[in-house]
């Protein structure tokens, strides 16, 4: 466990013990991992970091409404098929017709590509909750058997078992069938110590005092019932912005800080909620 922990840290991801354990389980059991959590807690970064650690390809499928098999698994190369048909003489045999539905005319999309790799890749199925339930059902075969059935070709089994990471922001309920096939991890916002380490690693030239103040400020801001809590990416952007503006102490640059809050607050409602009085309380916490 220490090894994986160190490798994650050396590749820029600061995990907690629970996450490291889950990732180890994923390796040992060859099971997909479903990670849920608010936007910006670092779900996608896990897959990116794992790809770096294993020095393998990261194959990413970004889900969206109406995502279908043609965009995610395979598609026939229609123009090539038509050209081939036209290039043949008029007498077409059944063999010719079968040929246009062979590997030569198959276009791989992310899921098919993932199971046909010699070296196990990281397959990231990002924001599965944005896809339809029908697509979710389609994934079941891949997640349990690591194979894909193409009616014209038959079943294609995985050459190597990919490490599958599925992320969800929880905007809709996923099916039990999908959940049952995966290990599960719920990723929370990092606690203050972990967030301190994350900033320290991502923004190396930050002084410890400012780092601690930023962490305390952000942690207090997340407790404010915001519509969209600032994620880790926002924290890092803000820290970098403050360093860029030459801020050494959060409390001494209050006016400047209030002008940079757009890095953290992403909706009009949240901007209205964090008024001067609330801001003063947040500064007090950070001091």
């Amino acid at each position, binding site marked *: 466990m220490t090894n994986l922990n160190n490798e994650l840290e050396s590749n820029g991801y600061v995990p907690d*013990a629970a996450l490291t354990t889950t990732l180890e389980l994923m390796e040992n059991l060859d099971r997909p991992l479903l990670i849920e959590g608010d936007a910006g807690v670092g779900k996608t970064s896990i897959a990116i970091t794992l790809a770096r650690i294993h020095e393998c390809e990261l194959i990413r499928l970004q889900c969206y409404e109406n995502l279908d098999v043609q965009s995610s698994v395979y598609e026939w190369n229609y123009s090539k098929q038509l050209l081939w048909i036209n290039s043949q003489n008029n007498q077409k045999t059944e063999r010719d017709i079968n040929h246009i539905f062979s590997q030569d005319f198959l276009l791989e999309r992310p899921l098919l590509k993932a199971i046909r790799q010699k070296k196990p890749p990281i397959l990231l199925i990002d924001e599965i909750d944005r896809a339809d339930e029908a697509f979710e059902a389609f994934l079941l075969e891949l997640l349990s058997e690591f194979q894909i059935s193409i009616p014209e070709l038959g079943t294609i089994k995985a050459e190597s078992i990919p490490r599958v990471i599925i992320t969800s922001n929880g905007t809709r309920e996923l099916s039990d069938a999908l959940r*049952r096939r995966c290990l599960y991890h719920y990723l929370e916002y990092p606690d203050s110590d972990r967030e301190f380490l994350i900033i320290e690693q991502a923004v190396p030239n930050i002084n410890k005092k400012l780092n601690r103040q930023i962490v305390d400020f952000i942690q207090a801001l997340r407790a404010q019932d915001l519509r969209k809590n600032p994620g880790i990416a926002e924290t890092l952007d803000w820290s970098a912005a403050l360093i860029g503006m030459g801020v050494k102490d959060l409390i001494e640059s209050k006016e400047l800080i209030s002008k940079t809050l757009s890095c953290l607050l992403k909706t*009009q409602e949240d901007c209205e909620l964090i008024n001067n009085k609330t801001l003063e309380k947040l500064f007090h916490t950070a001091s």
Partner: protein
Amino acid sequence: MINAQISDRIVEFTHLLRNKGHIIGIKELTDSMRIMGELNHPDEHSTLHHLRSLYCRNKDEWQQFENLFMSFWYPITSIVESKNTTQKNKTTFLNKQDKNISGIAGTTTAMFESMADSIKYAAGKQNTISKADFRFLNNHHAMREAENLAEKLALQLRARSRMHRKIVSKGRNIDIRHTIRRNMAHGGLPLHPVFSIKHKKPPHLVILHDVSHSMTWNNPLLFRFARGLIKACPESEAFVFHTRLFCVTKLYREKSIQQMRNKLESNNHLWLGGTCIAESLKYFNQHYAKAALRKNAIVIIISDGFDTDAPEYLATQLNLIKSKSKQIIWLNPMLGRKTYTSGTETMLAAKPFVDHFVPAHSVDALRSVIYKMKL
């Protein structure tokens, strides 16, 4: 290889979790045994983390798991204390169980059950926000969460109306995949092209929202729901009524919910008095129906049905609305409550003209509205 006594305890723990609603299959159980067998002197934290990843399926189960785990394996230690114990319990967690005869400090099923129930109750507030009656959401955080859920739910309507591409014999866009398949008899040459159409337009909704005093408890969430519907269907119209009716489509499209509420209040659209549903609908029929209603319009009335006007008067107005629209759905927050009888005169008078009466007392109840709409 896992010790038989420990494996028995893991099985017992698994059974108790199943009784608490966790769906744990044979595969999860065998995997947990295998992993426990492979670990050298696992401590409580590593055991907790392994079993949690294998046995949990959602956020609620994940958040409850630590307390359930502690109450089973360490029943003597209080739940609060267990969170703070780090190093002191770390030493050879399962080995310690070997010495402790039954392992796990002699937990009994009854003790676990009682602790698990208390945990479930504590965690339950958050778990069941979507099921909770709006009247009982007095906690500010829960209220905000339920409001967010209600708005998200309404936005699902957009996803529902955007159906998959439909294959048709006439159209503008040729679907090459289906064209080749359909023309296999001609050697794949596209003699009979097949077309696809993209998706349906979002439905045209007309929302008539009761903002009288009796709806005060329900309206913070129903506002969010109505606002979500208006955002999901851009051509929709919204009206609020108490003793009079006002068009508020623009206000429902405000970027911030607070701005929307402020403007509703400043324009005196929120009312702490009685309701004249029939009179308000008459005003709607006279001044807005011609522009707002059309054959494909779905009219959504959000009201508890407490009306000071005569029931026959309401029936006449609803009949007029029904004749110019596709469907009328009545969302009534009182319908989901035991104390309310749907046989009130107002509701009986409205019944022949309303396609669906839907309870609107919780987020879960609102979910069914999306699926009752004829798109």
